[in-house]
């Protein structure tokens, strides 16, 4: 059996294509074996033909498939991060990204409290931008490090990685109350409070911080200003967060269990609450009792009362920031170590 010139050229081009996809000493040998197989196949397929033409070669090459595909059968599967390292990689990735996000959140809070905030929305946007680039570069660096370990540590034992992946009984998750079904009564109360809160702050937003005040039940209702402009600028953000909390509670009530999505959802909104509280502390005073001072009548030092109320709010929110931050850390660690379904 002979191959005519164009058939031979086509076969040689195919074999060259295969060789280019292969690496190592065996590439010539593999290509020679493929050629041997193809010639055997041609001989069996076209036994009576004295000369094989391009047409017949094309037919069998089409059956074989692309040189890349053929060569891939001979190469061991290539991974950026393979199955051996992947569990450790994923654990480290989650820990590092959570730590980076936590550190950046803390730095944003400190900066916004200490520094001069020109525009709240700009700061919030900047915060998300920083988080995105921080998480992306941390994730990229971790992936690169593990890809290098995968590339150069192949077949070698890596003690640190093995230790990280070692199974320890005390690492098993605790069965806490949060693993159980979320309480329907609690969720219903949360939803009701959420709706009342949204309605109240929408009302306050529309009235420009004024609330109804009844000095005398027989007299006509009066509107007095309770919230300052400093507070009002944050109302859209408060409404957005209340909306997110409400949607989460409804999701939990409908699905009937805590999932990874609802847990991370809560962690994110809690983080946003911390930032919001920091901004609110910075924007004191949040409430004003000026209107009561003008109404007069009672022998009360309203200026002192106003300052007391604002200080009380500030202390409450500072405690809230600390408590929520601790809760966030606890939840993040829990979700990283034992992710929900």
């Amino acid at each position, binding site marked *: 059996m002979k191959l005519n010139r164009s058939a031979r050229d086509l076969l040689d081009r195919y074999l060259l294509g295969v060789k280019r996809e292969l690496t190592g000493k065996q590439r010539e040998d593999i290509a020679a074996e493929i050629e041997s197989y193809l010639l055997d196949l041609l001989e*069996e397929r076209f036994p009576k033909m004295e000369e094989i033409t391009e047409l017949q070669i094309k037919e069998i090459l089409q059956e074989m498939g692309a040189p890349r595909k053929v060569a891939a059968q001979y190469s061991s599967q290539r991974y950026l991060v393979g199955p051996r390292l992947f569990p450790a990689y994923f654990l480290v990735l989650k820990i590092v990204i959570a730590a980076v996000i936590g550190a950046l959140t803390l730095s944003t809070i400190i900066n916004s409290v200490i520094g001069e905030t020109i525009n709240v929305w700009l700061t919030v946007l900047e915060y998300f931008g920083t988080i995105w680039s921080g998480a992306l570069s941390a994730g990229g660096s971790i992936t690169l490090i593990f890809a290098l370990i995968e590339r150069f540590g192949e077949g070698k034992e890596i003690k640190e990685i093995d230790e990280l992946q070692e199974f320890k009984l005390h690492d098993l998750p605790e069965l806490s109350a949060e693993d159980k079904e979320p309480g329907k009564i609690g969720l219903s109360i949360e939803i009701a409070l959420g709706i009342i809160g949204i309605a109240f702050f929408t009302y306050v937003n529309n009235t420009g911080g004024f609330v109804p005040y009844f000095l005398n039940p027989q007299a006509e209702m009066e509107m007095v200003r309770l919230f300052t402009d400093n507070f009002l600028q944050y109302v859209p953000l408060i409404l957005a967060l209340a909306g997110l909390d409400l949607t989460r509670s409804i999701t939990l009530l409908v699905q009937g269990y805590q999932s990874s999505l609802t847990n991370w959802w809560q962690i994110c909104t809690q983080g946003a609450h911390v930032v919001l509280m920091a901004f609110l502390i910075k924007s004191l005073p949040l409430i004003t009792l000026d209107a009561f001072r003008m109404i007069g009548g009672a022998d009360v030092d309203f200026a002192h009362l106003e300052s007391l109320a604002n200080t009380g709010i500030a202390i409450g929110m500072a405690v809230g920031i600390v408590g929520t931050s601790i809760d966030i850390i606890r939840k993040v660690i829990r979700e990283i170590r034992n992710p929900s379904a």
Partner: protein
Amino acid sequence: MGMMNEKRTTDFEKLKQEMRRGVIVLAAMSQLKQEQYGYSLIKNLKDKGFDVGQDTLYPLLRRLEQQELLDSEWRVDDSRPRRYYILNETGKEMLRDLKTAWREQQEVIRSLLDEIE
């Protein structure tokens, strides 16, 4: 209904492939007590009812050779070079062990399947 049948057929084919994957080594090794080149081995297995493609068999032969279970050599035959493979002594021992393990597995599977009949 048609889609269900199509899915069932696809799933069946996938599971059958998975089941076969484990025994290709045994099938190939069983035919290599005598010297064979790749194409003749494929033909031989096919004639005996075991269909295996070149894309599976050639890389497998290389792996077995790397594991030092096979010996190979290039020889010019019918005015064309061909690579011939044969089990070496280690390969023969391995085949014996695999055959025993396969028979044991077969017995276990047989008794498991008998339970459901």
